[in-house]
Each structure stands twice: as structure tokens, then as C-alpha cells.
């Protein structure tokens, strides 16, 4: 069969898996066009290669730059083929990301050949107020986590009389464990910009900022190229006015995802939130009326305009129309970027699409450090804004971290508080001090020194921090702890009452043991131990051991494991330097 085109996924995760070498090797070996395309979504099988022939397209996964793999791809061999499992293909609805992976992300003509900028053309032919109405009628809600009706926000800005108005795209995806916005910017930069240009027409905005976190160099690069290209094509001229479009890089502050903090950061200040009102649509960047929306929200807009509000709103649930992107990661077999209609259940995403074995996972964390965990017994919950809120979690921006049975929920809660208390900007006392005290209580509990009083304290202080913080960071920081207390109280009790970590993850509550019966005395554990904690007769000295798991990983017989204990554990530097 004649190969027409070969596409290799070269977004950040593809590149991390070695996709560039695959592209180079393919180019050496064939004269067929080899395209570096966006994120194909099946991140578990990177590098991904799609071979397009006259009548079909074949997807290959885990392709290395070895001759064997490259030849298999070029000969359309059976091996290495990646079949999208029905559990995934039946549930997915690729409204927003359907064209990802079909062309080079910065190729504007290719984007146009897939219907790109048709939405903008259609919108420009409509009166601005009709565009706002269309977005209102689509019932699109902010995809950054807040869930505020987008059309309402647009009308607030549109109704403002001002010479200059500002549109800001919030691409400060600081939520650890989320990568939807990164993928969109890397793979569909024109679609995001098209959404912003439509918004600029609808609201008569004159300036556009894209505030992107600096940790996403490829996203920044692709968006910058896209901006230069639309400027060169004159696509940034809306109603006779040339729009100023710029990228501003964040500098590593989670709180800058909050809109007033983001505006301060754009102004060159410390990114600290302020009291609202005035809302940004009244007084935002440099006092100008400003509107801030998330990357994914803007990426939805061209689709809404192109296919019409009614068709868009026909998908999803009452409380959440359209589709939602999820970054599925953690203890699942098939992590990746997933787009499903709102209302699909967690079970369908985690077991179906993610391929996790039912019974092997105990919870999923939604909404990152601002969200909460949902236990496996509630996985039948349909995913939309309201249903997740009612469980004490949030939809958030769309990060889904699946937590396996072998993980400690208390340690997970400690991790989130470690993150949020360090990211607190320090303005509000309850967030600055309260979150730190909560973190310390969690450190005591995971460190084997917690008491029942610490658990009560977490519950009480959590409520106070929520109530006493100005912005979303503080108001949601206790959520992971409170949700864990709600659904996994028994794990807290095990730590403080029985002095045991049920998952045997907490170093201070577990020991390492070599089970002699299967041991072949191969010596790999001794060789791999950095602190010489294993004696020549294969006994672990748990007073020296740092619980680094090196021996467990090294053992070919799987005969080393964690056991309850930990009384001899010392995390002090002195013991680490032994040997």
C-alpha cells in the first residue's frame, strides 16, 4: 500500500520519550513526508507514529529509532500497531481536539484546511452582540475550574464603554498533574488564538495577553510562532483595528492562576490577589476593563461558532454542556489526554479509558491541590461541575490523578498541603499560618508522631482556613485534607492510634525486610544500597536504612518489601551519612 504521509507526535511528552530521533530516522529512510504533529493523546505509548495511506491510517505505539521499529512502521507491519481500545473510542467525543495530530501545529494553512478560522470568519460577519448571545446559548462554562458562564462574562466586558479593553488567556496551568492547556497550546495554538480573536470581536477588546507558565517552553514557542503568523496574515485585524497580541511568561507562582493575582503579575508586580469587587471586567490590567478566561475555554469558542450553539449544547449534561478535556495520570495503565462529553462517569474514564483494574485503585484526585479525592465506591458519579462539588471535590481544570491501593492517602494529603502552604502568597493569615500548621500536623502524622488531637485540629483548622482566606488558593487549600478525612478517616486513625501506615508508604511507620526463603544471595541489594544498611548475611539494619526502596527495585526475586514497623527510622542527616 502506498504511504501518503507519516505523522509523529512531537509534543512535550512525545519528545521526552524520544520522538525527535524517530522523526530524524524516518526522514533518513523514506522520501514520504514526515510531519511532527501535536499530542495524539495516547501518551502511554509514546513515541506515537501514524502512517496514512490512501484509504486508511494506522497508528503505531512505542516506536523507537531502532531500525527494526522504523522498518516495521514503513512496511505497515502488524507488530507495534496500536489499536485504540473500544472502551476509549466509544466514550470519546473529540469536539475540541479532533484535529490534533493531523498536521504540524504551527502550519496555519493546514489548520485552515481542517476548518480553522471558519469560526472567526462566521463571527466577523455577525454583529458583536449576536456572537455574545451565541456563546451564552451554548451554556459554555469556564474550563479553568470556576465554571462561571462564559457568555455572561463576555457580556459584562462587551457592555463596558472604554477605549481600551483587555482579553487575557490564563495559561498558567499551575495545578500539578494537569496538562490539558499545555497540550492545547502546543498542538492547537491557532484554535486558542481564534477563540480569543472571536472574543475580541464580541467584546470590542483591543489588547490580548496570553499568560503562560514558563515551565512550558514548547507551548510558548508554538503560540509565539502562531501569533507572528496571524499578524503576518492580517488575521489580528478585527473591525479595522489591529490587535496587540502578546505572550507573557509567568515566573513560577501557583497563586497567579487567580485572576487578580495574574493581573498584578502582568503589571510586573508580586502576584498577590486583591479583594473583589471591583471585578476585572470593571477594573483589571492597569485599571482597564479586562476579561480572563482559561485556554480550554477559548479553544471551545471556534467550535461553538462554527457548528452553532444548539449543536454544541446538545452534548453533555444540564450542568455542564459540551466536552471536557481530562489529563488522566497516576495508577492507570493508559494515561493520556482524554476528551469526553460531560456526564461520563468516573468509572468509564478510570477503568474504561484508563484501563485500571477495578479493585486496584482506591481513589481519584480531581482538581489537584484545590480539589479532593473521590473514593472508588463513588466512581459511578457522572462528571460535571455540580456532581463533583457535591462530593467535596471539584472539577477543577481537569487533572485526574488515580491513586492505587498501594498509596497512602494521608501522605497524599500531606503532599498537597506541602504544595499549597509553600505557594501561599502570605496575604491572609489563615492561609499563611493556618495552612502551615495543617501541614505540620500532617508531617507529624506521616512521621509516626501524630495524635488524635492532630486529626481533630486538621478538621477544625481546615474549615477556618477556607473561611478566612481571600482567594481561591486559601479557600480551597484544605480541600484535599477534608475530603481525605471524609472518605479515608480510617487511614488517619491507623497512623495515630495503631501507629501503622496501611499502605506501608510512610517511612517512619515501616521497615524494610528481606524474606530469606526466595533470596538467592545475588548481592544486588547490597550493591545498590547507598548507605550500606544491608549486611553480608542479608539483614537490613533499619536504623541506617533511609527507606529509599533501591534494594526493592534492584531485587530480581521480588523478595524484599516494606513491613509494618519504623521505630528505628531516623531521617536525620547523621544516619544518612553512615558508610
Amino acid at each position, binding site marked *: 500500500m502506498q504511504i501518503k504521509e507519516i505523522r509523529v507526535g512531537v509534543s512535550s511528552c512525545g519528545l521526552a520519550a524520544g520522538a525527535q530521533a524517530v522523526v530524524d530516522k524516518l526522514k533518513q529512510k523514506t522520501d514520504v513526508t514526515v510531519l511532527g504533529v501535536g499530542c495524539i493523546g495516547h501518551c502511554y505509548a509514546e513515541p506515537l507514529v501514524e502512517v496514512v495511506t490512501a484509504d486508511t491510517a494506522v497508528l503505531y505505539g512505542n516506536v523507537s529509532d531502532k531500525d527494526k521499529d522504523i522498518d516495521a512502521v514503513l512496511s505497515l507491519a502488524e507488530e507495534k500497531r496500536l489499536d485504540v481500545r473500544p472502551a476509549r473510542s466509544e466514550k470519546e467525543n473529540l469536539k475540541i481536539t479532533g484535529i490534533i495530530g493531523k498536521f504540524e501545529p504551527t502550519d496555519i494553512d493546514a489548520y485552515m484546511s481542517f476548518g480553522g478560522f471558519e469560526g472567526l470568519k462566521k463571527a466577523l460577519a455577525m454583529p458583536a452582540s449576536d456572537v455574545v448571545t451565541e456563546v451564552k446559548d451554548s451554556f459554555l462554562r469556564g474550563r479553568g475550574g470556576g465554571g462561571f458562564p462564559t457568555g455572561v462574562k463576555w457580556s459584562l466586558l462587551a457592555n463596558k464603554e472604554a477605549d481600551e479593553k483587555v482579553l487575557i488567556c490564563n495559561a498558567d496551568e499551575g495545578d500539578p498533574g494537569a496538562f490539558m492547556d499545555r497540550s492545547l497550546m502546543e498542538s492547537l495554538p491557532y484554535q486558542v488564538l481564534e477563540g480569543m480573536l472571536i472574543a475580541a470581536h464580541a467584546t470590542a477588546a483591543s489588547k490580548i495577553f496570553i499568560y503562560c507558565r514558563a*515551565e512550558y517552553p514548547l507551548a510558548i514557542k508554538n503560540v509565539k510562532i502562531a501569533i507572528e503568523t496571524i499578524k503576518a496574515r492580517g488575521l489580528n485585524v478585527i473591525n479595522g483595528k489591529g490587535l496587540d497580541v502578546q505572550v507573557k511568561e509567568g515566573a513560577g507562582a501557583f497563586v497567579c492562576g487567580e485572576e487578580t493575582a495574574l493581573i498584578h503579575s502582568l503589571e510586573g508586580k508580586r502576584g498577590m490577589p486583591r479583594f473583589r469587587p471591583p471585578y476585572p471586567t470593571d477594573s483589571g490590567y492597569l485599571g482597564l476593563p479586562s476579561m480572563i478566561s482559561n485556554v480550554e475555554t477559548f479553544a471551545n469558542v471556534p467550535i461553538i461558532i462554527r457548528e452553532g450553539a444548539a449543536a454544541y449544547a446538545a452534548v453533555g449534561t444540564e450542568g455542564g454542556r459540551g466536552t471536557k478535556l481530562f489529563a488522566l*495520570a497516576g495508577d492507570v495503565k493508559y494515561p493520556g489526554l482524554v476528551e469526553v462529553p460531560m456526564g461520563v462517569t468516573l468509572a468509564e474514564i478510570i477503568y474504561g479509558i484508563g484501563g485500571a483494574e477495578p479493585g486496584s485503585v482506591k481513589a481519584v484526585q480531581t482538581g489537584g491541590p484545590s480539589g479532593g479525592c473521590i473514593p472508588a465506591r463513588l466512581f459511578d458519579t457522572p462528571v460535571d461541575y455540580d456532581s463533583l462539588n457535591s462530593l467535596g471535590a471539584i472539577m477543577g481544570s481537569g487533572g485526574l*490523578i488515580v491513586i492505587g491501593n498501594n498509596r497512602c492517602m494521608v501522605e497524599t494529603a500531606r503532599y498537597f498541603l506541602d504544595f499549597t502552604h509553600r505557594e501561599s*502568597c502570605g496575604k491572609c493569615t489563615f492561609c499563611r499560618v493556618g495552612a502551615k500548621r495543617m501541614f505540620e500536623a500532617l508531617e507529624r502524622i506521616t512521621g509516626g508522631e501524630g495524635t488524635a488531637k492532630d486529626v481533630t485540629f486538621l478538621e477544625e483548622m481546615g474549615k477556618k482556613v477556607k473561611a478566612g482566606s481571600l482567594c481561591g488558593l486559601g479557600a480551597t487549600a484544605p480541600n484535599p485534607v477534608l475530603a481525605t478525612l471524609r472518605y479515608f478517616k480510617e487511614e488517619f486513625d491507623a497512623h495515630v492510634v495503631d501507629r501503622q501506615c496501611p499502605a506501608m508508604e510512610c517511612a517512619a511507620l515501616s521497615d524494610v525486610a528481606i524474606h530469606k526463603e526466595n533470596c538467592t544471595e545475588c548481592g544486588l541489594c547490597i550493591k545498590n544500597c*547507598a548507605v550500606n544498611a544491608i549486611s553480608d548475611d542479608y539483614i537490613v539494619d533499619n536504623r541506617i536504612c533511609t527507606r*529509599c526502596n*533501591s534494594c526493592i*527495585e534492584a531485587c530480581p526475586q521480588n523478595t524484599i518489601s516494606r513491613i509494618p514497623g519504623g521505630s528505628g527510622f531516623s531521617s536525620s542527616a547523621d544516619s544518612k551519612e553512615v558508610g
Partner: protein
Amino acid sequence: MISTFAYLEEIHPEKGNIIKGLQLIQQKEGYLSQEALDTCSDYFSVPPAEVEGVVTFYSQFKRVKPGKYRVSVCDGTACHIKGTPLILDWISTALGIDDGETDADGLFSLETVACLGCCSLAPVLSVNGEIFGNLNRKSTLKILKKFRRQG
């Protein structure tokens, strides 16, 4: 302006651009020296205290010269539950430095970062921006060895 930082002139000296200016200097020099802060204060007409305030607020800004190879271990949620603490432990033992430190030869520096966005390859780390995924102890130590050989 101190001639070392003459490249700042490619940025318009409005106050809103100060973060951009600091980022440019850090990109070129690897860190922000006192001279860099003073230069930004003059160039963007922002009082020194405010510059200091901005620099200390954002975690991206480094006041200490980093090593030739900046090892950034991702501690995003997916990486964390897949073993970031262990990876940090292995690296810190291998290099003899803790999180936030640079080794005596100035070859390696070690830091944790919030999330590199490659969650499906967790756990990941990056060395000078190049990302390595699906780490275990062996592959982690191999990466360090590779860069040590390059010197």
C-alpha cells in the same frame, strides 16, 4: 546600564516588563546577581525594594549561580505518587547535594519543580530543559552518569 546587561534594551522599559527583563537576564546569566537587580531597578524605574520583592515572590528566580547541569525533579501530583521522594533521595545521595543546592564543582544543581506537564510519563525529571520520563533508580543514575561524562 552595566554593559554586561546591554541586551536588556530589546525590552521596552515599562514597569510591566520587569519580570520579562529579569527572566531574560536569568536566561543569559543563569541567575540574578545583585548587579542584575540594580540594573533592572534603574532600567525599569522601579525601586530596588520592589525589584527584590518581585524576585523573592516568584520561585523561578535564582539568586545563586546554578550548576552547569540543572537537574529539575518534577514533584507534580502524578510524579509524586509515582515516587519523586525516592528519586530525590537517590540523586541527592549520588551527587552529595540536597534540593536547592549546587555541587562543589559547579557541575550539577538540584531542584524540585511543581509540574513539567508530562504526567503520563511520571516520574520525570529534566536536565537543562531536556525531559526524561518513566524513571527508576537505574535510569536516573544513568542520566547523571551521562552528563558527568560530558563534563
